[in-house]
């Protein structure tokens, strides 16, 4: 990697400028985000923390291209994603972004490997080839032996890892997770974070995690605190008063 590699180093993974988001609540308009300016660096594991209702999910949804901001610009690896056409934005997500949902949202009737292979299949890869790649990813996450099982035959932590495999299998440059460890015990939670760092964070990639979970705060490269729709802390550790 020559030119693009260098460019990726200089360029932030995500750059937001003046991002606001309003929601309509009955007659009232509620402003949930107040002009967020943020650069997320590649090669970093970034946490977004804050109290319930502070706007974390809204922020992360806007950063990964599934929720339109009311105002402001969002660039992901240099692409102004909300100026893309609908179809181009969908394809941009398919090529560049991995998602880990809190409820996993695995498809119950296909096995773990096929679930993990979904982004590749959606990209148009042959199903069996995609499945092979997915099994390799499951192997990295130490659950290759569960590849043939249906989601409901797996434990919560195993399903979580299948969801992680699905987020990483197509080697996206940005991975976003909302509360990935909320449902896990402390030990599994840390293991999941280790895995995410190992597989998801690289020179030209980054991972953003929304979390409440103070058991894993020490694993972050950077912690952003959101309060009432504004970023009030930006550092490598949590502020004292939290």
């Amino acid at each position, binding site marked *: 990697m020559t030119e693009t590699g260098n460019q990726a180093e200089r360029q932030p993974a995500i750059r937001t400028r003046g991002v606001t988001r309003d929601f309509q609540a009955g007659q009232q308009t509620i402003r949930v985000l107040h002009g967020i300016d943020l650069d997320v660096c590649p090669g970093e594991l970034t946490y977004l923390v804050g109290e319930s209702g502070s706007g974390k999910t809204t922020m992360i949804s806007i950063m990964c291209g599934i929720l339109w901001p009311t105002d402001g610009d969002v660039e992901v690896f240099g692409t102004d994603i909300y100026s893309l056409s609908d179809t181009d934005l969908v394809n941009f997500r*398919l090529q560049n972004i991995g998602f880990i949902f809190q409820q996993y949202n695995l498809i*119950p009737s296909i096995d773990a490997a096929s679930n993990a292979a979904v982004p590749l299949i959606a990209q148009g890869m042959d199903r069996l080839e995609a499945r092979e790649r997915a099994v390799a990813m499951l192997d990295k996450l130490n659950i290759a032996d569960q590849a043939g099982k249906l989601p409901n035959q797996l434990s919560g932590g195993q399903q979580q890892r299948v969801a992680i495999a699905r987020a990483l299998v197509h080697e996206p440059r940005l991975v976003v997770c909302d509360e990935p460890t909320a449902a896990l015990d402390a030990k599994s939670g840390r293991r999941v974070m280790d895995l995410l760092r190992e597989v998801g964070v690289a020179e030209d990639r980054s991972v953003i995690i929304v979390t409440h979970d103070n058991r894993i705060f020490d694993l972050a490269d950077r912690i952003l605190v959101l309060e009432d729709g504004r970023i009030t802390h930006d550092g490598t550790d949590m502020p004292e008063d939290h």
Partner: protein
Amino acid sequence: MLWIAIRMLTGDKQKFYGLLFGIAFSTLLITQQLTIFVNLLERGASGTYNVSSADVWVMDPVSRTTDVAYALPSTALDQVRGVPGVDWAVPHLRANASVRTKDGDLEGVAIIGVDDATLIGLPKGMIEGSTDVLSQPDSVIIDDVGAERMFPGQSPIGERLELNDQRAVVRGIADAIPSFTSTVVLYTKYSQALRYVPGTRNRLSFVLVGAADGIDAKSLSERIEEQTGLKAQTRDEFARDGVDFIIENTGIPLNFGITVLLGFIVGVAIVGLTFSLFIRDNIKQFGALKAIGVTNGKIAQMVAVQAGMVGMIGYGLGVLGTVGFISAFSNDPTFKGFYIPWQIPLISFAAMVLIIVLTGWIALRGVMNTEPAAVFR
């Protein structure tokens, strides 16, 4: 992605079978009811089709069908024979009578008197005995469905009947299309029939006509009407009259129409509800796919494949069910000669497509309206 769509559908066994059942049930109801309807209607034409050799039927102008006929004057036969283009013309008598069976029961029967010399007026085939038996005294030939009705489980051959106080002996069984009312039909020679039918008023119901070579039945019938002042219908016209008579004078079209409509509504209801439930159960998965990067177009394809698959399999089962029904009852006199006209599967196919498109579209709207951002909530 389509593979995933199919697995999503078949993986949810309960709903998958529910959907199949809905479509299959609907298709079965529509196909089967339409089949019975059409076949029953066609029986309105059975009197005409049983006499396949007659090209033209001549009758009194007020006569409407083979069973609703006013007597002709006896001069009609010679009048018709005098029309150019008529190859042959024979008398045909149709009348109702009461018959006393051996057990003393009274049964209404139709007596059909066929031409003494040519036996024109008999159905084409015989199931037992030959048409020659009519030359023996007091002979009648009974139709097969009538035989089963009047002599269930036993052979009617040799049975004696009392027809309006006249003796009749059953000597043969004809292979006939049953009438709409499945009335027992007794065929006998015209001269013999006159003895069975009391009174002097009804001596001739129809004159059956064969067209000379190269003469077309339609123009011949017009010429007969012109020259005799009687009503003349080609075989096909007269068959059609029989069908129309049933349509106009019975509640059958309405009854079957209601059943078919019910089949359709039940189909829409079962399939619509089940499909909506299926989509709702999978809405999180669809939302996840949308977030990951599956376009709305692809999602629509997935839902279409799911709906299409349910539709095709369910439709196949429904049509198979109808075929099974018809063949299972093919030996039952009520369903004798029943067949599935090719138009009917097409109609039920169209109904099925309508159900699928309607319910699929409603279900799809739910998926389309899901914001991908909803997956993080």
